[in-house]
């Protein structure tokens, strides 16, 4: 299948001056097929949002390429690039509180993107806004109200309507449920699932709730300190993680099942994610990895298929770790 989004060796550094350089996204390759939901997990600071924003041209690319439907996207977006790509690629942001302009009405917020469609009359714009508000479970009467009059879950719905009104094909959902109560998370996840099905959307779904990511995504990618350390189907990655970091992450995930929790062995790793400023050579997980070997601190492991029993079978699960060399 031809990927819809094809990311090749994408790099995004932030220069802080004085030789300090944040390796936010460092040589990531990932392709996303049409109508696929790929989940992206990893500790905060691992570069998930930066990857999402760089894909959409919200950051200039330091290096590497992104192809959309076969077409290479510019390294640095100009206004016309946003105009061209916004109807195709959109983003839903984490914070339903700060990502909506408090001085705009809900109707203005949701309809804003339609300015890119000057052929629509004012009435048509109104109709579409009403249609989308209904589709995300709000009511057309909410048009004239302001964001502060809504709950977190409702604001997230407003953010979803705003992103989807242009009927994009690809949406980066950056922690769309993290700020919400469990009951509301289920509402938003179900809504995204239904809309994806109905509209044929392709999603990059960033979240730190591993169970939710497994639930919604077909494939799951794991980031650590700017790099992709593992990717595979959600059940491969969740139930049979290969990378020591993924293993730690999955085993840290508390399950809503007391018997399971009582039988859990404590496998917490020590320490915290190091600073992405001027990262050391070798595997970035080496200083916390219980299985680190000498070569781990000198040679960076490449992301490659997990070895399989038979030579003819190539696994779709990829891992970046010397244990599988």
């Amino acid at each position, binding site marked *: 299948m031809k990927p819809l989004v094809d990311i090749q060796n994408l790099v995004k550094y932030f220069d802080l001056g004085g030789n300090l350089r944040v390796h936010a996204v460092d040589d990531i390759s990932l392709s996303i097929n049409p109508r696929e939901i790929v989940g992206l997990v990893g500790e905060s600071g691992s570069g998930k949002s930066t990857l999402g924003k760089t894909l959409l041209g919200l950051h200039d690319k330091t290096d590497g390429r992104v192809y959309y439907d076969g077409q290479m996207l510019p390294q640095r977006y100009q206004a016309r690039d946003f105009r061209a790509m916004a109807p195709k690629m959109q983003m839903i942001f984490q914070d339903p509180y700060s990502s909506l302009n408090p001085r705009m009405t809900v109707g203005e917020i949701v309809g804003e993107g339609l300015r890119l469609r000057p052929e629509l009359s004012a009435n048509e714009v109104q109709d579409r806004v009403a249609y989308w508000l209904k589709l995300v479970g709000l009511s057309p009467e909410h048009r004239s109200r302001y964001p502060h009059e809504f709950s977190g879950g409702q604001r997230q719905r407003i953010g979803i309507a705003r992103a989807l009104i242009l009927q994009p094909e690809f949406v980066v959902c950056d922690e769309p449920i993290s700020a919400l109560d469990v009951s*509301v998370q289920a509402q938003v996840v179900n809504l995204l699932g239904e809309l994806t099905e109905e509209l044929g959307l392709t999603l990059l779904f960033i979240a730190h709730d591993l169970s939710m990511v497994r639930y919604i995504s077909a494939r799951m990618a794991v980031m650590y300190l700017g790099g992709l350390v593992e990717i595979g189907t959600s059940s491969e990655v969740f139930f049979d993680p290969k990378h020591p970091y993924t293993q730690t992450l999955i085993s840290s995930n508390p399950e809503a099942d007391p018997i399971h929790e009582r039988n859990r062995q404590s496998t917490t790793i020590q320490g915290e994610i190091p600073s992405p400023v001027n990262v050391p050579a070798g595997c970035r997980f080496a200083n916390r990895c219980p299985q680190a070997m000498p070569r781990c601190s000198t040679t960076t492991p490449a992301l490659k298929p997990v070895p399989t029993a038979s030579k003819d079978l190539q696994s779709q699960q990829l891992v970046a770790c010397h244990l599988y060399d």
Partner: protein
Amino acid sequence: MSEPLLQVENLHVDFQTYGGVVQAVRGVSFDVIAGQTLAIVGESGCGKSVTVQSLMGLIPMPPGRIHQGSARLRGQDILVSKMIAGQDIRGSQISMIFQDPMTSLNPTMNVGSQIAETLEVHRGYSKSEAFARAIELLDMSKIPEAAKRAKQYPFEFSGGMLQRAMIAMAIACEPAILVADEPTTALDVTIQAQILDLLSDLQKETGMAIILITHDLGVVARMADEVMVMYAGQVVEKGSADDIFYRSGHPYTQGLRQAMPTNNKSTEAERTLESIDGSPPDLFNPPRGCAYHPRCPYSMQVCAKQVPSASKLGPSHQTQCWLHHDMAGPLPDGLVSVDGAAR
């Protein structure tokens, strides 16, 4: 079961606001047992924080008012008197940790001295004794190089380390009860696991009770002995962790559980998430009858009229729902009437 350390009875708290009176907590009762963890769960706004803030003397009055109820710590009502045997209860008998460590830490003072100060105030330690003990406490909270860290300021600590420092400060006076309000909500899962392990270890070492507020049922399953489910300022169900997860009797508890994905490899066909429609009621005007009735899939006529009475489902398991009334007929799928009846 041993005598409860803390007995909260019929607690009512409200807030006078310009929009009217917010009835934040409406008749909450629960016990806390020494050495055990009680988890309080429920959606935001249902009164979890206000409940524990009342115990900590943290309700701003006005606008707040505790207008009914008692909370007896080893028999003494701590809502009435703030002191037991000449000691401020807060900080010495009960202490609290928060989601944001900077709620309890002072940014302009080194971490060791802040902990030491608690010991000087509550325990009469000398300055040097107190600082030495502060280092021990940081070490107990698994902060590496505690002696060096004690001399550093909060801004020099990472998020996980700040959480540990706050815990060290909270346990300084060996409280009988540690109240933790969403302590790991802002943390990554790996750091969350470290902090939860730390709390369990400290509980084993010191025998303190923990009241843990969280909206994450995974965290509840990992930590809780007893669980109390709150909705609209009231307790709708309480019981052991197993009661709540395997034998829940209240539709709201069931709703919360079904809203979360389960990670069961063996169930091939994925269960779809059942969301709870709508949102919790505003507490200016809580619904009549059962507060959950506008959202409850099993709501009956009586539910909108009369407050359900409490039904005892097991030794420490009880719920407030009309479905458990003798006259209500068979229970819907998944809800359990008597302990052990279903899994």
